[in-house]
């Protein structure tokens, strides 16, 4: 087991008692120091993965390691290197955030009191009001403050930005960048169905669907890797058998061809001008479109069909 891996998941399966198959042989590796975005539609199994990593759920089979150990077998000192925020965190309603700090300090040896106050200020969470009197959104921010200040090496965040307003989201992204550039090799695993929260701050993403990992890639490699192409041919349309390399989608309607092409940024399209007079337009595919493409593309492959 490599110490370079913050999270290692191999062949993970989980079926809930009522028969819902949440995970079907999931594979996932998160290297240390990464900000990893776990993305996928609702019901893809993202929350189940995080719960299994923390031993809040038991898998049917497979392996799930955090910082090299299964959470269940990890000693307390190892567990203190990991922090988790569930989708709807429950905080003690009678305590103010400030009152929570000594408890967390006792649990987390690397607790950072300065960062706690700074984060509270940035995310605009009052320190002295009972948490139960704060709105859901502010409570959510309070739990982010607590998680960021634990000094944990591995943070698992389940839909952290879902309950935040635009200002809260911005502050959240800034906090993530801050942690990632601290140079201490902190790892964040962030699950979300909102790509926009991740597309600047994450450096790697895993795309999940129906309990499986469809793709894991560096975000910057996905961005700009595909192009939409429209080609208008003179006369009747493209010559018979016309199909340039790297086409993921290819549609002909009369003289017009629409395609999505895999092509490295800055490179020229290959094989698109065999006919004189053909008019070609290229458009970049934004990240959201790329993810949708991957989600739908794999679905069509027969070997991916549910057994």
């Amino acid at each position, binding site marked *: 087991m490599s110490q370079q891996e913050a999270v290692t998941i191999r062949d993970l399966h989980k079926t809930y008692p009522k028969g819902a198959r949440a995970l079907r042989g999931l594979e996932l590796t998160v290297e240390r120091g990464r*900000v990893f975005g776990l993305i996928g539609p609702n019901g893809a199994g993202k929350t189940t993965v995080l719960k299994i990593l923390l031993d809040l759920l038991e898998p049917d089979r497979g392996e799930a390691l955090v910082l090299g150990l299964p959470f269940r077998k990890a000693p307390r000192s190892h567990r203190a290197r990991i922090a988790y925020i569930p989708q709807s965190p429950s905080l003690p309603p009678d305590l103010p955030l400030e009152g929570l700090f000594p408890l967390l300090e006792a649990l987390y040896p690397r607790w950072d009191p300065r960062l706690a106050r700074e984060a509270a200020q940035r995310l605009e969470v009052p320190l002295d009001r009972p948490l139960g009197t704060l709105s859901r959104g502010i409570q959510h921010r309070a739990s982010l403050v607590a998680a960021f200040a634990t000094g944990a090496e591995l943070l698992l965040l389940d839909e952290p930005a879902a309950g935040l307003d635009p200002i809260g989201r*911005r502050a959240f*992204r*800034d906090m993530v*960048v*801050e942690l*990632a*550039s601290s*140079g201490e090799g902190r790892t964040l695993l962030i699950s979300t169905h909102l790509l926009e929260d991740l*597309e*600047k*701050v*994450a*450096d790697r993403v895993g795309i999940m669907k129906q309990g499986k990992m469809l793709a894991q890639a560096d*975000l*910057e*490699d996905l*961005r*700009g890797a595909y*192009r939409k192409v429209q080609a208008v041919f003179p006369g009747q349309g493209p010559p018979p058998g016309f199909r340039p390399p790297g086409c993921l989608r290819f549609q002909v309607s009369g003289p017009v061809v629409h395609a999505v092409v895999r092509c490295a*940024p*800055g490179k020229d399209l290959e094989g698109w001008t065999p006919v004189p007079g053909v*008019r*070609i337009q290229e*458009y*970049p*595919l*934004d*990240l959201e479109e790329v993810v949708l493409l991957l989600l739908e593309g794999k679905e069509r492959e027969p070997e991916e069909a549910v057994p």
Partner: protein
Amino acid sequence: MLLFHVDPGSGLPVYRQIMDQVKFYRASGLLKPGAKLPSIRTLARTLSVNPTTIVKAYNELQHQGVVELRHGKGVFLAPLPAGSEGALKEEVLRPLLRELAAKAAQMGLPPERVCALLRLHWPGETSKDQEKPREGRGRKEGKRK
């Protein structure tokens, strides 16, 4: 610090957007050889992007000889290779020129006409032609608003 801007939705990798801006600043003389560029951490914070993205941009720029990473000191603009100034400017403009040329060709505009149009829209340019310069200035003022 000079302004850097990234558009995550642009479809171009963020590290390439940063590289392009550094190259533009170099070719335009806004950054001189030896100038210190913002640190990885500073740029990550100002742009709110993951620091590995900045590392990737700087590494690639170093590979291309645009910047020098001096350990513990920071990132500096490399000296310009002798006589390379024109080539650097051309490199920055190339994608725009190619797009312009492709679009003009598709509409059947000859290069001479495109050159004339370029001249017309040149900042501050007053053409000898009586009609066109007014149109040119009008457009420019519109853009400034």
